[in-house]
């Protein structure tokens, strides 16, 4: 049976004088940030009470109540900037770690990195830079990260002055990145990619600069192996507490991205094993180049010296023969 009183919601007079719905300004949908009509000033609301309410958003796209920092667009933007700004990324899989385990692991990691920083500062190198403060171990949204990685790797933004500011989040960027990824996938320098790694629950350790010493410290904590043994119980008892060890058992190192190049577990350990860090690497390079120079001089000199030795030998031989001949003449 239909209701006797045919009331339509539109005909009802609201109890409060203002019939504009309350909209939380922080929770508006990101894509509508510019499209919404500005709220009318408070003085007008009473006079225009009978006028139909201004729609602040299209009915098909109601405002999002997701916290802004976890929006997909925001995460995408954040991952792009992360990929562009940090040259050293380590990729981990985390298998159901608990919050306490995460905090324990992060604490150990920060302590280890800070110790390296302090050691370097004590040696007088890199006093200003602090890798420990810039390093971050965070869980990522895998799909959004994969998309951001594609945009960073395969999209070249157009920075010409008359064009609009390039947006890594735009559909145009996405389209050109996807297209480039398809065409460039089989070229040799693109053969190794992070694609197979990007599935499942992932965590990312980002370091603000490529520093083998810090990488080594991080690897000894997060993925100890024969080359990078974990700190002993006597040296670092906190590391051997249950939450840390339980968490580390569930954390798997998958690979790394060092200055745009992809490394597997062994590759990362190779980077971490560079003795003396970057300074050591420079010393090695200088030594190698010096060695090459010495080799070249040696090789060039060798020819001349060989010739000289032969000629000298021949001269001595001839002199001896001459002496013998003279002696023979005297006797004869």
């Amino acid at each position, binding site marked *: 049976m239909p209701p006797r009183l045919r009331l339509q919601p539109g005909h009802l007079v609201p109890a409060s004088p203002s019939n504009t719905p309350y909209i939380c300004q922080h929770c508006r949908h990101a894509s509508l940030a510019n499209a919404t009509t500005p709220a009318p000033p408070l003085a007008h609301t009473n006079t225009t009470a009978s006028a139909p309410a201004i729609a602040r958003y299209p009915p098909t796209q109601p405002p999002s109540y997701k916290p802004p920092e976890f929006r997909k667009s925001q995460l995408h933007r954040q991952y792009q900037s992360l990929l562009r700004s940090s040259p050293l990324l380590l990729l981990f*899989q985390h*298998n*159901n*770690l*608990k919050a306490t385990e995460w905090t324990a692991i992060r604490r150990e990691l920060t302590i280890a990195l800070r110790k390296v920083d302090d050691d370097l500062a004590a040696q007088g190198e890199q006093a200003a830079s602090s890798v420990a403060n810039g390093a971050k171990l965070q869980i990522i949204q895998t799909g959004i990260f994969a998309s951001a990685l594609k945009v960073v790797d395969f999209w070249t933004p157009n920075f010409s002055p008359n064009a609009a500011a390039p947006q890594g989040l735009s559909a145009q960027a996405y389209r050109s990145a996807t297209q480039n990824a398809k065409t460039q996938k089989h070229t040799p320098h693109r053969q*190794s990619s992070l*694609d*197979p*790694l990007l*599935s*499942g*629950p992932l965590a990312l350790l980002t370091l603000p600069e490529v520093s083998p010493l810090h990488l080594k410290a991080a690897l000894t904590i997060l993925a100890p192996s024969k080359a990078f043994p974990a700190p002993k119980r006597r040296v670092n008892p906190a590391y051997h507490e249950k939450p840390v060890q*339980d968490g580390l*058992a*569930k954390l*798997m190192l*998958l*690979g790394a991205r060092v200055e745009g190049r*992809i*490394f*597997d*577990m*062994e*590759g990362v350990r190779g980077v971490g094993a560079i003795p003396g860090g970057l300074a050591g690497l420079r010393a090695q390079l200088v030594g190698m180049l010096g060695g090459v120079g010495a080799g070249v001089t040696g090789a060039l000199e060798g020819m001349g010296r060989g010739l000289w030795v032969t000629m000298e030998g021949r001269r001595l031989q001839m002199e001896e023969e001459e002496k013998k001949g003279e002696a023979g003449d005297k006797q004869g």
Partner: protein
Amino acid sequence: MITRYITNVSTAFSPFNARSGKTVRNFLALLPPNARSTMKIDVKMFGQKEAEKPASLGLKFKDGKEMDVDLEKMKLRDIQTEVDRHSRTLRRQEELAG
């Protein structure tokens, strides 16, 4: 997935293999947070060069049944079905035994 009756997981795989690596990694992600206290988990990972090396995933159950998963054919959902099928029989036996 019912993981209560698994006692042993041993696997060797390369995460750079798009097929078997993904399957094994997702399987490991399904194990509960306290998995290491209830079962023995042995993970061996190959590098990028050995991505094509055949991966293996072996499971052992409480009744002693050993399950060798064929990662060429089976994907995560299939493995889940197989594990659940055996685990359900074990659960029923346990319930009947009281």
